């Protein structure tokens, strides 16, 4: 099959004429074969012109394979033989209409009308208003089975999502997660662009993964325009990415401690997360890393005094984080809560196509910084941090290992000169090209896919946040668990709602 598909790499554009137009049967069969051989379905999405574009991510070979196929109103669903396609097929149907026949649980993803004119996949009239969240949900029938519905409005200040548990007493049979409440239409808004606001929309695609999404976006545009940002900019981007990882992982470990009522780490990590956000702000002025990455480079450098100051603060934060997190992992009552709770088995993780921290916690060594390196990762080797049990403890431990690695990386990056030429001018995008940007954000790989038309404008822009792959993992982790452990399991994944809703 590899000779049929177009083989490319992360951040390298290919001309659309080199992307093969396969028949859908052949493409589906190839996807099933590749996925069973260890590849991951990175994208299965409409191109807006009646075709499906499929991206296979081969982590072992460091390759991305692309193909496309024309699709009609109906096609045989890929999901029964390739479960990780389930959400892509639902999304495709919602956006462009093709019905995946044989899909086991075929329903809308984000509660919006079809983008292109044509029949709705669920037979809804074009003038019928679509109310968010009003969808069919899975039900378990039987004596003593009861249903608990949580959200979309929650007791804490968190994003909206609806969780429907089928329970038998405290035991959860099944959890169904219904999102889409924050759908903003940022993919669609990028069409015809890049517009002046596109960059800002990508920065806000998932607010906690600003650097991850912005870098992936810049990577796509730079590939399409065939420019390379200066090496200093690559180092600064890597620094930003690792600081974002540090802030979020540290915050997550604190939140996990908070969920089991372990106060010391919850409080200390809450403050320490702020220290890392402030380091981000020291580079670019925004604690969330906005306004730093731009196509062609970055906006701000760091002179020697600033690097020295940042290194100093980094070392102080490292000392505090080490103390706080070691206390967490050395407390037996915490271990009793973390261990053997919310287990995702490796074969489930593979079948569901989990990515990032959740996947590495099942013992699979995948990390886009290692498997698909770009920029600073070409010179700086990053080894995936893995832990094998697939439970809450493993997901916490992977985060801790990554905190240690990232502290080391930032320390080394700050030792390099970080000023000089920061940005090269961006020419217009090459017409009729396709490019993929894959960046390992703190949650997992962020994939952006851009296609240009004959005028060099974007005809389709696809964003795949790691949360899109991983929400299913949370549902799997809850099978046969206690409903009271849901918040803990949820926090151990800590997935993005808006990154999924787009």
């Amino acid at each position, binding site marked *: 099959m590899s000779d049929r598909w177009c083989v490319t790499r992360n951040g390298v554009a290919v001309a659309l004429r080199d992307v093969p137009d396969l028949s859908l049967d052949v493409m589906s069969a190839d996807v099933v074969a590749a996925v069973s051989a260890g590849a991951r379905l990175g994208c299965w999405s409409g191109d807006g012109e009646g075709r499906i574009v499929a991206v296979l991510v081969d982590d072992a070979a460091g390759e991305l394979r692309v193909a496309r196929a024309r699709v009609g109103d109906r096609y045989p669903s890929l999901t029964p033989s390739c479960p990780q396609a389930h959400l892509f097929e639902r999304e495709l149907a919602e956006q462009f209409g093709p019905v995946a026949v044989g899909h086991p649980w075929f329903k809308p993803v984000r509660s919006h009308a079809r983008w292109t004119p044509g029949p709705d996949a669920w037979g809804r009239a074009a003038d019928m208003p679509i109310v968010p969240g009003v969808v069919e949900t899975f039900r378990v029938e039987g004596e003593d089975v*009861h*249903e*608990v*519905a*949580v959200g979309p409005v929650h*007791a*804490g200040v968190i994003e909206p999502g609806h969780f429907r548990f089928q329970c038998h*007493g*405290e035991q959860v049979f099944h959890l169904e997660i219904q999102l889409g409440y924050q759908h903003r239409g940022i993919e669609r808004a990028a069409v015809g662009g890049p517009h002046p606001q596109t960059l800002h929309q990508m920065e806000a695609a998932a607010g906690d993964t600003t650097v991850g999404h912005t870098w992936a976006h810049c990577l796509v545009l730079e590939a399409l325009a065939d420019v390379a940002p200066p090496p200093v900019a690559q180092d600064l981007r890597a620094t930003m990415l690792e600081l974002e990882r540090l802030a979020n992982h540290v915050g997550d470990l604190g939140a996990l*401690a908070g*969920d*089991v*009522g*372990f*106060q*010391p780490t*919850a*409080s*200390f990590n809450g*403050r320490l997360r702020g220290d890392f956000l402030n380091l981000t702000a020291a580079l670019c002025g925004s604690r969330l890393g906005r306004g730093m990455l731009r196509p062609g480079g970055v906006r701000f450098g760091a002179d020697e005094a600033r690097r020295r100051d940042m290194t100093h603060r980094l070392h102080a934060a490292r000392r505090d984080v080490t103390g706080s997190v070691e206390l967490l992992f050395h*407390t037996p*009552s*915490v271990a*009793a*809560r973390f261990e053997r*709770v919310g287990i995702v088995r490796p074969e489930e993780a593979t079948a569901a196509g989990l990515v990032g921290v959740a996947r590495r916690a099942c013992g699979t060594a995948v990390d886009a910084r290692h498997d698909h390196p770009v920029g600073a990762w070409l010179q700086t080797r990053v080894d995936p941090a893995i832990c094998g049990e697939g439970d809450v403890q493993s997901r916490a431990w992977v985060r801790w290992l990554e905190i240690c690695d990232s502290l080391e990386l930032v320390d080394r990056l700050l030792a390099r000169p970080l000023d000089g030429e920061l940005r090269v001018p961006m020419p217009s995008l090459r017409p009729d090209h396709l490019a993929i940007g894959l960046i390992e954000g703190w949650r997992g790989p962020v994939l952006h896919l851009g296609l240009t038309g004959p005028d060099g404008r974007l005809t389709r822009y696809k964003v795949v946040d790691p949360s899109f792959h991983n929400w299913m993992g949370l549902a799997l982790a809850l099978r046969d668990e*206690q*409903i*009271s*452990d*849901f*918040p*803990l399991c949820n926090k151990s994944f800590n997935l993005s709602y808006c990154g999924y809703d787009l």
Partner: protein
Amino acid sequence: MTASAANAPVWVQALLALGHVAVLLGLSPLLLGVVVRVKAWFAGRKGPPLLQPYFELAKLLRKGAVVSQSTTWVFRLGPVAGVVTALVAGLFVPLGGSPSPFAFAGDLVLVAYLFALGRFATVLSALDTGSAFEGMGASREVAFSCLVEPALFLGWLALAQLLAVDAPLTLTNLLAIGGNAWVAHPGALLLVVGAWVLVVLAENCRIPFDDPNTHLELTMIHEVMVLDHSGPMLGLVEYGAALKLAVTSSLVLGLLLPSTGRPALDLGIAVGGLLVLAGLIGVVESVLARQRLLRVPMLLVTASLMAAFSVALVAMR
């Protein structure tokens, strides 16, 4: 023992009783303030003022309440019953070495079932809302409280064996005799104290049984039952919880603080003791994580077993 108090003039007894009620009513919220303050200190924060629970109560009492249309008078009964049962139970529980204002033979059964009555009313008012969450919390609360009772009664049984044959079986007598028997039965008393500390933590929804600070509905036990209460009703719920903390803590305190023979001094020592106990609860909450809900029964059975062993220990002497 209580002889000095019992022999005192009526007006002294009346003053002591008033002092007892005043301590319960006035001091209880301060205990919550102490817990929060100790936790804040452990977390490296300054924490809210010690009197914050009083400010909160004052705020809640001034507020309006939103009541779901699906509820009945049962919903409003819960918070009131919570305060009343805790207060009445408090009238029969001695504060440290200071005797309780009221006592009769067998009053300990009344105390145990006053707690149960308060819980029953809370559970009913939770079920009255018809919410899935509150039903879940109610079922948890009821299941766990069944396991708390044996620890309480077995502890009393251990102490009752020490009671003179002709002495009335009152809580005051029981706790006083326990407080004075540390030399003869240190092991048994230690076990009872251990069991009852667990009872205090469980009854008051503290870590490791429940987390009073969590906002996560699905993990809550007690808090989820009062999610629908607001304004003055929520104020009553919180006040009732504070009272219960004071009353259950004074059970433990009665064992730890023998009477000095001077009632006013005893009362003063008891107040100090309550504050120290609240501080210790704060420490426990700062160094422990919460148990898995599935393991809570195990911990409660442990408490009952400790009390049972103390019964055996006393019987063997």
